[in-house]
């Protein structure tokens, strides 16, 4: 009896210990963790097609929404159970950390093979998001570490029917014209602009557009280095844009706490005349209201000193686990996935801009409008350095306070600068 108890105990202990181990990787299976709910079906179809062609099974596992996905990836990295292919949705610094900790494979060799034919087929801006140059700020070995599945940019959209209702013939080209359009829309009871500013990154993106237009890239970087204060008159003008939007009632009610999915619904259901959203919205609007007539425009510029720059580049990128025993198979699958035929299929099925420029002929007209602005894109991932996360948070939260009329641009600038100085001191220490 006693011996049996001891045996049962040892058996349980053995099960517990072996259960804690890593699942063994299957030889002909590439496991992909992704977050793209809207592209899941199309990716599954392509995975099946790939299996038929090569005999390699592609197991796609969807984990959404993206913020939860992001957390899952970090937890998996900590537990050393990352899949063969995954995405890093955080800023470049985090991608750098993943690389330095040996979790992400350097794909430069694969891209450069056969006269760099794979590299040349993709948009350079899309590759730039996961590319590290010589002497980069993040101390990462130079190379290309990610494969862009599509490209994206974030612009303003206008509802043609609602503008017409307010007697506006052409979309506004300047900020002054934009405010005029808002006034005309309000006179006929139509809300102005909607966006998911309950998600502060979208506020940051809009503010960044105007920062490039008013402050200029050089001064922005100088601010990040701590050489220019956020209380500088140019930065006050950037924050002033939000104050003007609030005062002129240009923003839809509830915008400060609106998630982007609700904002997309508002624009699709014609509750607002303008939206600030990314090119992925084409698919979303198509699903919500296929009759929606809309166009794409750059956010109306304020200053003539610097060009308006919008966020854009790689939409969704995959990286390959450097520790994966199926590394070569994973790279081969990604190469196949970004080839012209597969990219054209993805663009057709999911209404996203393809990362392969040869597949651009197959995209719908509205996506072509988005594609036209690819030359005006920029993104924090390709800047020489990024602002401290705490400062960004204070900046975004400050703008949220401005658009609900709680704080003035000056007050927000002072608060942001105080946090900036505190963080600078901390870094020096």
């Amino acid at each position, binding site marked *: 009896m006693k011996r049996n108890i001891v045996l049962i105990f040892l058996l349980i202990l053995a099960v517990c210990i072996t259960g804690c181990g890593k699942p063994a990787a299957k030889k002909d299976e590439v496991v992909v963790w992704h977050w793209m709910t809207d592209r899941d079906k199309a990716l599954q179809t392509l995975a099946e097609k790939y299996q038929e062609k090569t005999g390699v099974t592609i197991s796609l596992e969807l984990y959404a929404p993206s913020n939860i996905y992001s957390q899952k990836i970090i937890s998996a990295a900590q537990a050393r159970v990352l899949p063969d292919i995954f995405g890093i949705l955080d800023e470049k*610094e985090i991608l750098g*950390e993943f690389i330095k900790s040996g979790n992400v494979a350097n794909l430069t060799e694969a891209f450069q093979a056969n006269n760099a034919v794979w590299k040349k087929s993709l948009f350079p801006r899309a590759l730039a998001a996961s590319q590290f140059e010589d002497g980069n700020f993040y101390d990462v070995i130079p190379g290309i570490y990610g494969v862009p599945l599509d490209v994206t940019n974030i612009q303003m959209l206008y509802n043609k029917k609602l503008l017409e209702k307010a007697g506006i013939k052409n979309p506004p080209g300047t900020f002054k014209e934009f405010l005029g359009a808002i006034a005309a829309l309000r006179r006929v009871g139509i809300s102005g602009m909607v966006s998911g500013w309950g998600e502060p990154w979208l506020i940051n993106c809009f503010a960044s557009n105007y920062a490039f237009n008013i402050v200029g890239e050089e001064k922005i970087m100088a601010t990040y280095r701590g050489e220019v204060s956020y209380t500088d008159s140019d930065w006050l003008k950037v924050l002033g844009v939000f104050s003007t939007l609030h005062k002129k009632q240009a923003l839809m009610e509830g915008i400060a*706490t609106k998630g982007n999915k609700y904002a997309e619904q508002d624009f699709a259901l*014609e*509750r607002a005349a303008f939206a600030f959203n990314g090119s992925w919205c084409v698919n979303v609007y198509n699903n919500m209201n296929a009759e929606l007539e809309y166009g794409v425009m750059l956010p109306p510029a304020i200053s003539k000193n610097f060009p308006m720059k919008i966020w854009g580049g790689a939409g969704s990128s995959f990286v390959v686990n450097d520790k994966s025993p199926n590394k070569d198979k994973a790279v081969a699958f990604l190469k196949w996935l970004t080839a012209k035929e597969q990219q054209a299929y993805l663009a057709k099925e999911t209404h996203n801009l393809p990362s392969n420029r040869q597949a651009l002929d197959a995209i719908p007209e509205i996506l072509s409008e988005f594609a036209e602005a690819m030359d005006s894109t920029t993104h924090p991932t390709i800047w020489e350095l990024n602002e401290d996360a705490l400062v960004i948070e204070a900046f975004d939260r400050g703008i949220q306070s401005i658009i*609900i009329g*709680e704080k003035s641009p000056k007050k927000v600038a002072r608060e942001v600068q105080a946090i900036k100085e505190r963080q600078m001191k901390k870094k020096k220490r």
Partner: protein
Amino acid sequence: MQAVKNKSPQWMNFVDKTENFLFIVPAVLIFGIFYIYPFYDIFTLSLHEWNGISFNLKFVWFDNFVELLQDGGWWVSMRNAAYITFVALTFQNALAFALALACDRQIRMKGLYRVIFFIPPVLSEIVVGLIFSWILYAGIQDGQHIGMLNYFLDKIGFHHLVNDWLSDPKTALTCIAIMHSWKGFGWGFLMLLAGLQTIDRQLYEAARVDGAGAFHTFWHVTVPMMLPVIMVVMILTILGSMQAFVLILALMGEGLGDHTAVPVTKILSAMIKQKRFGYACAMGVNFGVVLVFVSIALKKMSNRMKQV
């Protein structure tokens, strides 16, 4: 038989004791792995600066805790959680008690009421968030309010009360607190109803014979008999409300700055957005300690009330 005889009493004693310990080993292991070790790990991490991925953890002693003490936003989030808890303790529990009292009486269709009152806790917090975002929506289309509450207020002539409920710092947190109370009152209702049904009906008979009115019966019979249950409901309400955050995420994403921040959203933000795992762990330790103190205080209060 011979083998047993050969073994010394000390050896037999040792085997007996070892056997006894063997029985509690699974429980100790589970408790150690899933409770003690995570707490130890979180505390250790709270003494480091770490972005969650890097192999390099920088030991910073108690710097994270010192920074936390000076972090105004953290204490505002604590105050917000305390406000939600206060609304839950008063409004939610009063509602739960009133409805439990009503259902304890001989009323028609009380089984149906019990089911209806227990629907909100069964619903997912994401669903509740979506329902309330529709009710509290502030947009206008073709001159009409689309949000249910604003539409209703407008139609009955209270135009001045129409508001952007979730984006107004004065109303956003109260909306969350009310929503949380609506979602949670069913649990209190169920526990209080179960408690009410255990009270001996003869006590009510005796009170009535002695000439006690409805209020006196309630105050001198129901309340004292229900004190242990009320204390349990209070402790669960406090612990549940202090940690409420899913509703906030479902209703308003990352919220309205510090106006709707609660400790858990702050911890998530430090961890996911700022990638400051050490600081997030310090927040977790601090929050855990506060909750332990609150629980101990309530337990002591409960013991004292039992003695009274």
